[in-house]
């Protein structure tokens, strides 16, 4: 067992940022460089551990790695259970890389430096906690906890409309997770109602269930993944006075809503443009770069494995045609891609443009996950694995898109923040012709935009290709529409480039130094390197993802 400072690596990754945040609060307020350097060094240290964990992760091994399980709230059967598989390893890596870059970008903050840095670090605790959690209560704990630092980052250091944006973000997310809270309570408790002989039978077929004592509630995700889907078969009939299928359906809706708001799935995305554009640069980087992935991760880790039968259960619409939840999910994904692109094209605020681009890109993640849901569900319900290969491709694409979008959107927000820092406006109509005055900035801007657009040779292409290839046989019409949406992705990216870099130079900025600073170049350099590397040699990361995806899908 790898231990760092006496605790296991994953618990360290969760706890260390919180401790670092506490240290930040105790540091002297001036000179400001103390706070800035301390935060940078602390986050780099934690990032190094994250990279180490990723490199040590052995994709050939079955099961979760770096696992640790300690009783936490025994009354409820909740334990501090952490562990990673390939998908979470990638997310841990992403979080570990982005946080020091966000800290570095935040060196431009002058007001209450230490508190700002502490909040960024505390936010990292929330993110790490969700990705490594293998207990539903711990998952929920960090899911909610991550809202608090982000609220304060937006509310205190944000743009002119920050009050509205932060409250909307907080209340929208809390409202969504309310159903999730109730559903987790229901799920964790209800497995205690499964009769003992049914539990024994399940334990024989699922070795991972060995440690579970029948008749007790549990929140362990590994146990629940085996027990909860089997609930209908083992209990049958009425549950809590209503048909068990209805109970499951309601729990599904509750889970779905919470994660759909976070991803965000159209039409639950309306909190995002305000939150992203009003947040300070570091806040936007982490919000778009990692926080949105919490939602997608939740779908893959929880909603799909827990509710396979609900995803493919036929829903009769107006007595005319039948859909299922996976199909609706794919439809919403397509809408996210197309409408997100249209909305981005219509923006004059550069940060809002990038915010809507997040809706657009996460649409591809959702499309891939919809394929996963459908195929996994079909396999669970009637054992057919006809489209398994396509599902593996699509899920690989979705997970890689999560990582790639993390890089490219963080990069785009970094660049938006850089130009805002110089010009103090986000209105692209005031920009124009910056290429002349800031060629390095221009080059980086084009590079990152191309990665975001999905130019072959850069990372975005690989993931979008995989998703489209995987989704095509499964959701042909929707994939076709989404690909047309890709055209519009190109249009808003090019609009952004033209508005910022090309065209007549606005004489207003004649005496300004618009060029990107060395510190900002250092911050974005790792992102650019990874964008290029993933585009040319995706195999540095694909085996980690692929092996876990195959295991999740049970193929």
């Amino acid at each position: 067992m790898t231990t760092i400072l006496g605790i296991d690596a994953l618990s360290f990754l969760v706890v260390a940022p919180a401790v670092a945040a506490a240290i930040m609060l105790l540091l002297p307020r001036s000179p400001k460089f103390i706070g800035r350097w301390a935060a940078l060094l602390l986050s780099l240290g934690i990032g190094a551990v994250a990279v180490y964990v990723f490199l040590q992760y052995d994709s050939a091994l079955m099961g979760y790695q770096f696992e640790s399980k300690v009783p936490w709230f025994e009354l409820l059967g909740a334990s501090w259970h952490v562990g990673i598989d390939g998908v979470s390893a990638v997310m841990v890596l992403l979080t570990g890389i982005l946080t020091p870059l966000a800290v570095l970008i935040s060196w431009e903050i002058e007001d209450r430096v230490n508190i700002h840095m502490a909040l960024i670090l505390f936010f990292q605790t929330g993110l790490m906690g969700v990705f490594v959690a293998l207990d539903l209560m711990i998952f929920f704990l960090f899911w909610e906890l991550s809202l608090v630092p982000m609220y304060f980052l937006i509310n205190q250091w944000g743009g002119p409309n920050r009050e509205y944006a932060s409250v909307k973000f907080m209340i929208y997310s809390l409202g969504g997770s309310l159903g999730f809270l109730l559903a987790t309570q229901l799920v964790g408790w209800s497995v205690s109602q499964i009769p003992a002989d049914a539990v024994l039978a399940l334990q024989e077929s699922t070795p991972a269930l060995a440690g579970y004592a029948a008749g007790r509630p549990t929140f362990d995700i590994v146990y629940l993944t085996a027990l909860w889907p089997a609930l209908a078969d083992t209990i049958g009939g009425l549950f809590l006075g209503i048909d068990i299928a209805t109970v499951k359906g309601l729990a599904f809706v509750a889970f779905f809503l919470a994660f759909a708001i976070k991803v965000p799935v159209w039409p639950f995305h309306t909190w995002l443009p305000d939150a992203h554009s009003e947040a300070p640069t570091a806040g936007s980087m982490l919000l778009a770069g990692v926080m949105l992935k919490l939602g997608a991760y939740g779908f893959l880790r929880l909603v799909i494995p827990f509710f396979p039968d609900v995803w493919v259960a036929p829903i009769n619409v107006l007595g005319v045609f039948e859909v299922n939840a996976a199909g609706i999910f794919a439809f919403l994904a397509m809408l996210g891609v197309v409408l997100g692109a249209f909305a981005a094209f219509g923006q004059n605020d550069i940060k809002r443009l990038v915010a809507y681009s997040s809706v657009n890109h996460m649409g591809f993640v959702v499309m891939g996950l919809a394929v996963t849901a459908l195929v996994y569900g079909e396999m669970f319900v009637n054992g057919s694995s006809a489209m398994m290969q396509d599902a593996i491709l699509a899920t690989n694409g979705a997970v890689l898109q999560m990582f790639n979008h993390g890089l490219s959107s963080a990069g785009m927000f970094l660049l938006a923040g850089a130009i805002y820092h110089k010009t103090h406006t986000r209105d692209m109509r005031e920009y124009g012709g910056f290429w002349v005055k800031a060629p390095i900035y221009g080059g980086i801007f084009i590079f990152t935009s191309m990665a975001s657009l999905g130019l072959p040779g850069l990372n975005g292409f690989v993931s979008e290709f995989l998703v489209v290839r995987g989704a095509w046989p499964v959701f042909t019409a929707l994939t076709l529409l989404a690909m047309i949406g890709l055209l519009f992705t190109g249009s808003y990216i090019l609009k952004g480039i033209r508005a910022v870099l090309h065209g007549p130079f606005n004489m207003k900025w004649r005496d300004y130094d618009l060029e990107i600073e060395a510190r900002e170049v250092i911050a974005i350099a790792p992102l650019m390197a990874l964008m290029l590397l993933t585009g040319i040699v995706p195999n540095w990361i694909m085996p980690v993802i692929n092996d876990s995806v195959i295991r999740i899908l049970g193929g």
Partner: protein
Amino acid sequence: MIVQEFVFPVLSVIVLLPVVAGVIILFIPGDRRDLIRGIAITAAAAVLALSLAVYLGYNNQVSAVMQNQDMLLAADDIESPGTLMFQSGLAFEERIPWVQSLGISYHLAVDGLSAPMVLLTGMVAVAGVLISWTIEDRTREFMAFFLLLVAGVYGVFVAVDMFVLFFFYELAIFPMYLLIATWGWVKLREYAAMKLTLYILVGSVVALVGVIAMVITADQFFQNEGAQVFQNAVASGLLPSDLSTFNFSITSLTLAAEHGAFDAAGYAGVEALTFAKLWFPFVFIGFGVLAGVFPFHNWSPDGHVAAPTAVSMIHAGVLMKVGAYAALRASVQLMPEGAQVHLPWIVFLTLINVVYGAFIAFRQRDFKYVIGFSSVSHMGLVSMGWATMNLIGMTGAGIQMFSHGAMTALFFGCVGIVYDRAHTRDIPSLGGFAKKLPWVALAFIVGGLTSMGMPGLSGFIAEYPIFVGMWDASPQIALTAGGVTLSDYYAVIVVIAALGIVITAAYVLRVVGQVFFGEFNAQRYPDIPAITMPERVVLILLGAPLLILGVYPAIMAPMIESGVRSVLAMLGGA
């Protein structure tokens, strides 16, 4: 059955030290304020230290207690497992026969449910004395009455004799009246103090009548059908040998309850009625008035607002828990059949507490009223936990008593610190106070997040099991009235109660944003002194447990669980 002991009767010291200190203070000249404060804080710190020692001492024994309880539950030839579980869970027991002819003994002990409450009282006592450090007007009387109030509260938690429980309960009420009426907010204090006292007194009188009826009925039972049971209990040492059948001992009453003394059909000539079915609502709601159960909560918001800060802290933080605790001990434990009949409809009152209280808190302009109604809302969760009548829900209620106690005392401390400097509690007039009082802002945010049930803090640790307990209870509990049966409705109640969380989040965010952030009006508040050391200690003393319990529930949950199990054994047997 205990493993550890102190060389001195620690519980008596905890209860009587504040009384002694209070009396000493009354003899000191009124202008020797520093000496008065010194004695007060020494006494408070001493009882806090002792309370902590009691808590930790009990914590060490919890696994032994639980094992013993498991054994008692598993064995099927034991005559009174419930009473035995209760008796064997008691620690640091002291007993002196007091009024032999009436069967009253001076009998003190803690169990898993009362030990955290003892700790909480100690914390709030110290915090109260520190937050009142700058009171100049009749400091002597204030500190003396405050310590008397603390003694009364302690006495209720550690009482194992119903008379002793009532004695200390009433002892706490009269200094409460004086403190609010004399040092409270001028505009409201006399009205609020009178209303509070009348409500609580009437409630306690109703409960007292019920308890006396219980004592009489138990006596009749032990003299007739239960004679053998009584003799066996005395012989086995479960009950003391000098006890007559007419007594106020909670152990004896539990024994009577377990053997059906209160469940005989045909009470008062009505065939379907039993003693428990008739008297439970009176005793539960009688004590529940102090716990703020709707619709008898009305004394609470005005009482909170009118009281001086330290009194608000102890009022919301501890006194309301006294009501909930007494309701559990005197009615649920002693009349379990009554609980099973009545709690299924009382749960609707608790739901109204939770949701309605939150909505009203949202509408308030006065900082203290927000917190006052927030207390009403959160105490609803405690009563809701009792209404689940299962292990998980009731343990959650016990945790909520501690968590909310610390949290609300912290809130009132923060409000008091701001009010001392700004001289207004009107939320729209305040603003930007985080710049001047950053630690107060942080403490208030921690408290606010706890009240929203934010994971990582103790509020989540408390509310989660209450809700899971509601889910667990849902298939088991049905309410029959007239010809109509309502079943599986606890699940619906818990979904509605969760709404309370969203409203709480809304008003907490609003208050935090309006009071601590936003524009600071430097003209209106030209001089805002920084936080003092006593105030800092208050914030840390009350805030730290919220964080500790939030990340490490094992430090308290098993203890409360052990305390709840004996009550549950009674519910199971009834």
